């Protein structure tokens, strides 16, 4: 008893930020060595300006110190494209403006105040906006640094501070993504707190409820996602933005937002997670631990897709890795230890490359020659910063080609590109790095296979869009052909391997490799159609392959085998199962009228103009895909029923839980096959800008011509 009290007290005590006693005192106390020294001190109030709608508010800047404060400039920093701006440096297309004339530089006596008015005047599509009021002055006690690169008039020891501006966050908008990311984690915490003796069903239903609420939020997101917003509308085309400074010492921000690319993935994640909870229902060993890990995994996946700060992205990326490791390792099949450590080491190898690239990009960002236009790498509260982890700023404010040195005989930016690419290619998985996937799938429980194939693989291609394409577009042009070749290899190699499999689950795993090849080919085309097709393929593969793995799980649960050759005539005893099995396989092989076809078609159309030969090769992949799908279908469902399974399969068709998982997915596949516009609209929102941006970095036209001839 005393021990428990002790522990509880300790927990509480340790949550209290002990370090704060040391760290926070810094700006406030006077130095002992210079107690007599007069110092100016700047305070800005209010601490944050938020607007619920059009209007203007007043900022008060006060010198609370004992010496005169030199204020050099007060500026408005808007998050947006820097290349179009007015004379005063304010970007034209953004909602924040000075109300009246911009405040002038002046000396602020101790105790004196200075006021400025900020106006929020949004265009119809600019419901949201983030920015900052930034004060540049000579106060060394501000927690910031000089930023006066192009202002020769300022003393070199200019310091700055600022306050964040917020607009249009009213209601749920700003918090929606935060909620979606951390709700599963809260669910996990709840499960931890429920005592183990509460019964397995309690944990199952808590997990189901959490995933269902998250799915509900995803539906809300889908309904309220504005399909007309682009980069030109400010916020770099992001919506549902939440942004504040997280780790000041590293210039790391908590920055969440979605564009068309992210929102697709977020919805997919919520959907697949919900389905996977259903598929986890028959997990019987350490149920509590299982669902804790499962929900943490969902948080990791969600966070990866909405994090717009590269550092934060990496944290979520790794956060996703750990639960996966345990989920395969504890609840997996006989060779789980091998499979899980292989999965872990492969992915980690990729992510350390990412880490290197992150740091390299960070230090290259903001350097003279790299920064485009007006330097505003400031943090979201206006604190000036020399370098940035902000993905959007890395994308739109930095041109890494401009000042790229040669390292080890290769352009530095290309080196970074390769590092990031391999990091994500392992996850996709791309051809030489794919060997972890079949092992992991075979050993993982059904639900985890669903997550793995449905969501985790997409992180690779998502990352390529977000990092490789957006941040290093020139290097993308440099490497596009290789990317396309690897895509085609993936398609064909995956298909051939799938043909040779006798284990149904391995077959589906290799079909995933094949299908992800279409994504790679589509994105390598660098056309809007190809890229949207690639994104569409990511979503569709997520839904279809989830169905496939659930179907494999259904039969494995009953017979404890997955051998393709051990069945036959299953259709005669399990008609519902056979119907859905056939449906899913048809969708997977790209039957017109189902969603898989749309995506593949878009990819081929997008890629054909650029890589004729490769596209033709890829199209032949469709034939092989059809071959192994139909072959497996035939072996399992047609022919004579194998009497060995009389007891297991007869009168044991899909139950309600299994139907409840499969039918919604089938409906989505069907709808998107006939009427893909709602999804395409959503995806195009972000992809249009991304494609245009990458296009703008294309090298001289002759290069493109050479490529086109291929």
């Amino acid at each position, binding site marked *: 008893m005393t*021990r428990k009290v*002790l*522990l509880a007290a*300790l*927990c509480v005590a*340790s*949550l209290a*930020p002990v*370090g*704060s*006693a*040391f*760290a926070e*005192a*810094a*700006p406030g106390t*006077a*130095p*002992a*060595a*210079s107690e007599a020294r007069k110092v100016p001190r700047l305070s800005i109030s209010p601490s944050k300006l938020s607007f619920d709608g059009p209007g203007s508010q007043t900022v008060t800047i006060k010198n609370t110190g004992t010496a005169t404060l030199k204020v050099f400039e007060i500026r408005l920093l808007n998050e947006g494209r820097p290349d179009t701006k007015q004379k005063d440096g304010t970007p034209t297309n953004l909602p924040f403006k000075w109300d009246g004339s911009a405040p002038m530089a002046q000396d602020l006596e101790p105790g004196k105040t200075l006021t400025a008015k900020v106006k929020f005047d949004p265009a119809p599509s600019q419901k949201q906006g983030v920015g900052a009021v930034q004060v540049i002055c000579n106060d*060394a*006690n501000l*927690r*910031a*640094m*000089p930023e006066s*690169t192009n202002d020769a008039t300022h003393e070199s*020891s200019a310091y700055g501070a600022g306050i964040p501006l917020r607009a249009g966050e009213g209601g749920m908008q700003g918090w929606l993504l935060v909620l979606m990311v951390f709700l599963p984690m809260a669910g996990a915490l709840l499960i931890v707190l429920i005592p183990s003796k509460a019964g397995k069903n309690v944990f199952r239903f808590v997990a189901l409820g959490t995933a269902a609420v998250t799915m509900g939020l995803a539906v809300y997101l889908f309904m309220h996602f504005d399909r007309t917003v682009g980069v030109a509308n400010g916020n770099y085309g992001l919506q549902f933005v939440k942004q504040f400074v*997280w*780790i*000041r*010492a*590293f*210039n790391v921000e908590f920055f969440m937002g979605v564009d068309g690319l992210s929102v697709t993935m977020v919805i997919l994640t919520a959907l697949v997670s919900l389905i996977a909870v259903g598929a986890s229902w028959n997990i019987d060993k350490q149920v509590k631990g299982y669902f804790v890990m499962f929900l943490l995994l969902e948080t990791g996946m969600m966070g990866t897709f909405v994090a717009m700060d590269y550092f934060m992205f990496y*944290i979520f990326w*790794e*956060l996703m*890795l*750990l639960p996966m*490791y345990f989920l395969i*390792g*504890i609840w997996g099949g006989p060779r789980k*230890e091998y499979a*899980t*450590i292989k999965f*872990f*080491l492969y992915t980690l*190898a990729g992510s*350390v*490359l990412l*880490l*290197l690239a992150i*740091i390299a990009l960070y*230090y290259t960002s903001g350097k003279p020659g790299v920064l485009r236009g007006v330097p505003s790498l400031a943090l979201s509260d206006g604190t000036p910063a*020399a*370098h940035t982890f902000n993905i959007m700023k890395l994308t739109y404010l930095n041109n890494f080609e401009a000042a790229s*040195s040669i*390292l*080890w005989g290769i352009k530095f930016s290309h080196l970074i590109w390769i590092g990031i690419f391999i990091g994500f290619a392992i996850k996709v998985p791309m051809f030489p790095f794919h060997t972890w996937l079949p092992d992991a799938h075979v050993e993982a429980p059904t639900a985890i296979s669903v997550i793995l194939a449905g969501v985790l693989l997409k992180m690779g291609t998502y990352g390529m869009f977000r990092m490789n394409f957006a941040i290093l577009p020139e290097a993308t042009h440099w490497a596009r052909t290789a990317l396309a070749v690897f895509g085609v290899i993936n398609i064909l190699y995956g298909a051939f391997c799938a043909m040779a499999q006798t284990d149904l689950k391995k077959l589906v795993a290799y079909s995933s490799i094949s299908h992800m090849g279409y994504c790679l080919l589509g994105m390598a085309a660098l056309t809007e159609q190809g890229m949207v097709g690639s994104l569409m393929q990511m979503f569709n593969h997520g839904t279809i392959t989830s169905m496939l793995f659930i179907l494999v799980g259904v039969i494995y649960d009953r017979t404890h085998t997955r051998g393709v050759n051990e069945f036959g005539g299953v259709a005669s005893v399990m008609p519902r199962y056979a119907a859905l099995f056939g449906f899913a396989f048809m969708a997977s092989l790209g039957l017109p009228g189902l969603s898989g076809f749309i995506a593949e078609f878009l990819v081929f159309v997008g890629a054909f103009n650029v890589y004729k030969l490769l596209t033709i090769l890829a199209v032949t992949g469709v034939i092989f895909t059809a071959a192994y799908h139909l072959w497996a279908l035939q072996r399992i469902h047609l022919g004579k029923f194998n009497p060995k399974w009389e007891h297991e399969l007869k009168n044991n068709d899909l139950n309600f839980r299994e139907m409840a998982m499969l039918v919604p997915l089938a409906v989505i596949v069907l709808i998107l096959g006939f009427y893909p516009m709602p999804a395409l609209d959503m995806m195009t929102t972000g992809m249009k800008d991304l494609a245009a941006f990458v296009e703008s970095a294309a090298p001289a036209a002759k290069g493109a011509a050479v490529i086109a001839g291929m």
Partner: protein
Amino acid sequence: MNGWKDSLGNFDPNALMYQLPFLLIVGFGLLVLVLEAFSKGSSKRWLMWVAVVGIAAGFIGAYLAWKKLGVMVPGDAQVVLDIARGAAPPSTDIPYRELFDGMLIFDRFGVFMNIVFLVGALLTVLLVADYMKEHGFEFGEVFALILFATAGMMLLAAANDLITVFLGLETMSLAVYVLTGSWRRSPKSAEAAMKYFLMGAFATGLLLYGIALIYGVTGATNLHTIATEAPKVGSNPLFLIGVFLVIVAFGFKIAAVPFHMWAPDAYEGAPTPVTAFMAAGVKAAAFAGLLRFFGHALGNERLVWGPAGWGSLMWLLAIVTMTLGNLSALRQDNIKRMLAYSSIAHAGYLLIGVVAAGFGAKTAQPAVLFYLLAYTFTTIGAFGVVAWLGNRGDERLLVDDWAGLGSRHPAAAMAMTIFMLSLAGMPPTAGFFGKFYIFRAAMEAHQQLAGQTGMMMALVVIAVVNSLISVYYYLRIVMAMYFREPARETSPLRSPAVALALIGSALFVLQMGLLPSRYLDMATQSLIGR
């Protein structure tokens, strides 16, 4: 020659404030000794609480000293920007006090290090009492020895003169030698103490020789004077040999390859809490000395690079240390030996920080500091779980002994997992930020050297590959705990003190991983003065 008058005349009573942590720790060490001598009863376990109070007082002392040392402009970002522009760092003074004829210097760097040592001492004290009781070699002086060793570390961290560097190192080492051999019934403990002592004495000899040569050339033992003299005599062979010998001596202390051969045996043989203390505290103190002498005083570009520069030597040392440490750890089945090799590998990572500091990467010093704090919590926690699991006659040191711990003792297994992940550098733990910070500092150094050499970049790449290798053996323990069925019964220590230490360090490792901002701010403010 009226030096003593000057000394006393200039003596500032406030100066005592700065070394309050040191004085308190020594005072409580003496108190423990006296209480031990005059107390009756066979169990001396209650002395632990005296030591804990002493360490708590030390923390308060550190807090006061921190406050007294005043403000500096926080944020490495500022300095980074300046460097990026090629401008001189801003003229904000780093507050410091140089006292006792320049023998000691007090700055926030020293205070931060003191905090690291105090954390190490606190956790060790909490672990050691019940461990000794369980294994039947209780003695009251252990707390005094731990406190004195801590005082030696503090001396080293505040040393501004090679004489005090030497004395601090010796004070610390001597106490730790005794602690290592204190389990007298165990032949392994005796062997460990013997090896550690012999190697330590050898290192001491080399250090003295090096100091003598440096003094011979520069005419000074004061670090600041050496720093001003060094560029003039930088190519003098005697100076280079002196510096080289000092590197070798410190290499022994931090167990850098190829001076590491004592470490696995010493770590394995010593009582587990003492091993933890060695791995965390001693290493941290040695790195404080390294940073002060190499990272700061000799942080002159001419001295650092080139075939005869200490930086190139340490660069090599870092690579060899990381790589061999990790590769050797892969083959270990004994957890203590595995952690010993892991600790060698971590010395390699930390050396990257020292090299980066030598190149003038301003984030390197704070990076090493943060890493050391994180590493102290993590490694003592890990050894703590090892100590907790064993009982008399059955130390449970093999990886196979840990099978199924996850279902038997979920809390302990969870704590161990957190420590292992932190050692491996996975988010969201303190170890991740430590490693990230170090790599970042190295990358900053690379940026500064841009165009000249890709060697810092190579160093980072090798470090990253190494941290990947290390994941394998850290996860071996996790795998044994969770993925395997329990092999046999366990009856771990039932000790609230040990539980307190373990849970406390686990929570701190998590907190430093989730909300690292305050600790990072603290580290960035802790620069070496003068």
